[in-house]
């Protein structure tokens, strides 16, 4: 949870599409508290965060669709002098694909760009399955 950064914002909420707006609001707050973060860095970080959250909401609970109540995620975002960092945790099903296999699909494909876009946007994206939880970590090295 990006320990050591006292300015971080942590949210834990049900994994529903409506929560995407709240995560945008969390990021708006982060930018307000760190008004020196360059627009280019905000844009690519926010986009990657929303892609990963969108995947959690859409995919991580697909098969396990009986027990809506317990579908939750948590997210922590922080800005340091040099980096923007986000980490996600969720108790959904494990990711089916290997990040090293992710590639941008055909130009006219209507879907399948989420992970490729997130990976292109940030400087580091990692995924781990730990203690029955999915853990995602995103890092942008600040350019601005």
């Amino acid at each position, binding site marked *: 949870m990006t320990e050591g950064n006292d300015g971080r914002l942590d949210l834990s909420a049900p994994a529903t*599409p409506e929560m*995407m*707006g709240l995560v*945008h609001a969390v990021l708006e707050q982060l930018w307000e508290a760190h008004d020196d973060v360059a*627009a*280019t860095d905000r*844009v*690519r970080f*926010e*986009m990657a965060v*929303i*892609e990963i959250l*969108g995947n959690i*909401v*859409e995919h991580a609970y697909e098969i396990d669709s009986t027990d809506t109540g317990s579908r939750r995620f948590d997210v922590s975002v922080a800005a340091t002098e040099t980096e923007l960092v986000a980490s996600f945790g969720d108790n959904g099903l494990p990711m089916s694909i290997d990040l090293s296999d992710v590639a*941008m699909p055909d*130009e*006219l*494909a*209507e*879907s399948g*760009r*989420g992970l*490729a*876009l997130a990976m*292109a*946007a940030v400087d580091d994206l990692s995924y781990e399955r730990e203690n029955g939880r999915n853990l995602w970590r995103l890092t942008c090295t600040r350019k601005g």
Partner: protein
Amino acid sequence: MIEFAVETTPQGIAVVRPQGRLNMAAARRLKEVLDGLVGDGRNRIVVDMEETTFLDSSGLGALIAGLKSARQAGGDLRVARPTEAVRTVFSLTNLDRVLKPRDTVEDAFDD
């Protein structure tokens, strides 16, 4: 919530203006709007993105879907006035060629 203003130019071109965040929920609605236009025979469409503050892969998917159905109907879909957020997504996905953004809504169908 994102708003979709739709106008028609004197040349009969439909102009769609997604205002706000073009994300998962909004992408579904944009796809409906674009499908509706093509279904009504309005297959020359400009998506004016001057006020689109955020775009993700699902919004991009809706644009590509609209582009394909407009072309299939003999028309085209063109993007005008992208914000920085939109341009970033186009360039990271290498779609600046297929969704080549135009500087103005008026000239979007000039070539």
